[in-house]
């Protein structure tokens, strides 16, 4: 079990946390990328899913986006983005040049791959959430004279909130854990600690990196659960 004591030694050595390439810096990078990717996915996915749910159409689309999304390996997507030429229409900014953002090309590619990866849980949950508002509730709202937009904002959205929040929470933890994959294309984040340790047969370091990632995932999950309690109406709390 020297591996475990190596891991402990790595974790307790201040030098492995501080400085350039230290774990604190990598942790910050990965948090930034995770949150921005989640935000991007929410900006794209939520309006579409909620609107389709409100109209009651496009269920086929909502379900299949999630199935296709699962079939595309994130690693493959990331690899394709890293190898692609920047598109002219984006002024050479996408999918990334050496000058794009603080983490360059691998960073932008990771961001895009993770945002796409997060779309399925967000879209499926948000769509289902709005669809599952009981028909009689919807009818009574219309009977009370609510217009389409009032129905959505005052009735459907509040009732759908818990399930939407579950999807976002799931997406957050999945993005965080998957963000480590950036290391496979020399991107930012804690994945580097793991792959470095692995390639240099410093297994203790690899295990230490994995532990930190798993711990932060748990913390994120707890924070998200707290946030979910705050957005869910009191009477709907489980």
């Amino acid at each position, binding site marked *: 079990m020297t*591996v475990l004591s190596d891991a402990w030694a790595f974790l307790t050595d201040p030098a492995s946390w501080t400085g350039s390439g230290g774990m604190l810096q990598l942790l910050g990078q990965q948090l930034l990328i995770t949150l921005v990717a989640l935000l991007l996915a929410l900006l794209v996915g939520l309006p579409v899913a909620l609107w389709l749910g409100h109209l009651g159409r496009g269920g086929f689309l909502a379900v299949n986006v999630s*199935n*296709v999304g*699962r*079939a*595309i*390996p*994130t*690693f*493959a*997507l990331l*690899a*394709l983005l*890293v*190898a692609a030429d920047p598109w002219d229409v984006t002024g050479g900014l996408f999918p990334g040049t050496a000058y794009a953002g603080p983490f360059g090309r691998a960073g932008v590619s990771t961001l895009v791959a993770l945002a796409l990866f997060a779309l399925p849980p967000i879209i499926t949950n948000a769509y289902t959430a709005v669809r599952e508002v009981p028909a009689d509730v919807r009818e009574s709202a219309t009977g009370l004279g609510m217009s389409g937009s009032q129905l959505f904002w005052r009735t459907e959205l509040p009732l759908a909130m818990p399930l939407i929040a579950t999807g976002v929470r799931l997406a957050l*933890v*999945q993005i965080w*854990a*998957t963000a*480590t*994959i950036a*290391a*496979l*294309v020399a991107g930012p984040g804690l*994945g580097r600690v*793991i*792959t470095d*340790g*692995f390639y240099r047969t410093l*297994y203790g370091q*690899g*295990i230490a*990196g*994995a532990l930190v*990632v*798993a711990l932060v*995932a*748990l913390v994120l*999950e707890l924070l998200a659960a707290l946030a979910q309690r705050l957005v869910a109406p009191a009477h709907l709390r489980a």
Partner: protein
Amino acid sequence: MTLLASADAGTTCYSRLTNDWLCWQYVSDYRTEITDATVQHLQITLVSVVVALALSFPLALLARRYARLESPILGLATGLYTVPSIALLPLLVPFTGLSATTVVIGLALYALTVLVRAFLDGLRSVPEEVRESATGLGYGRGRLLLRVELPLAIPVVMAGLRVATVSTVALTTVGSLVAHGGLGNLIASGVTSDFRAELLTAAVLCVVIAVALDVVLVLVQRLLTPWTRTGAGA
């Protein structure tokens, strides 16, 4: 070494200068390499899913029988999902080395998390009256499980199996970390050598495998549950 001879600089669509994304010349020249990678990908995926299936059924039965075991089993399964795949494989290497076994263990663990839940939900979806009538007809515990509960649980279990299979196909690519990633090996070498035809071909094949296995599972489900198609219900 006919491959090298035919690939003289600048003439093929996958040469360094052209480096096209889509290149049939690449596919035909590297046919054996691509086939080998595809076969390895399929083998790793299938073995992992079968192992996970074999382990998850008894685990689900245990969790159902002893209520006290349910939350630890499900909790462990959920917790496992927060361990990134890129970390799980290196964690196993000190024990199982750079082998296909390492990848299979890792992937089976991930598939297990989905399948245990699917088995539990599936068995729970069997109506209590059905269970009671079977017991009334003299079915013992074992026969009740195999002849009544399991067949009725198939739709829910198959839904879980489809998710697990498709995700496993995608995750197998990460096995390239330990040099056993099937098509992931081609993707990894495509990234390091900026070989676009190799990259795109491998990525597309991954999706094709996932979709093909999904279709197979849907067909198997139709065969296993003929009663759902007559509309009479179970």
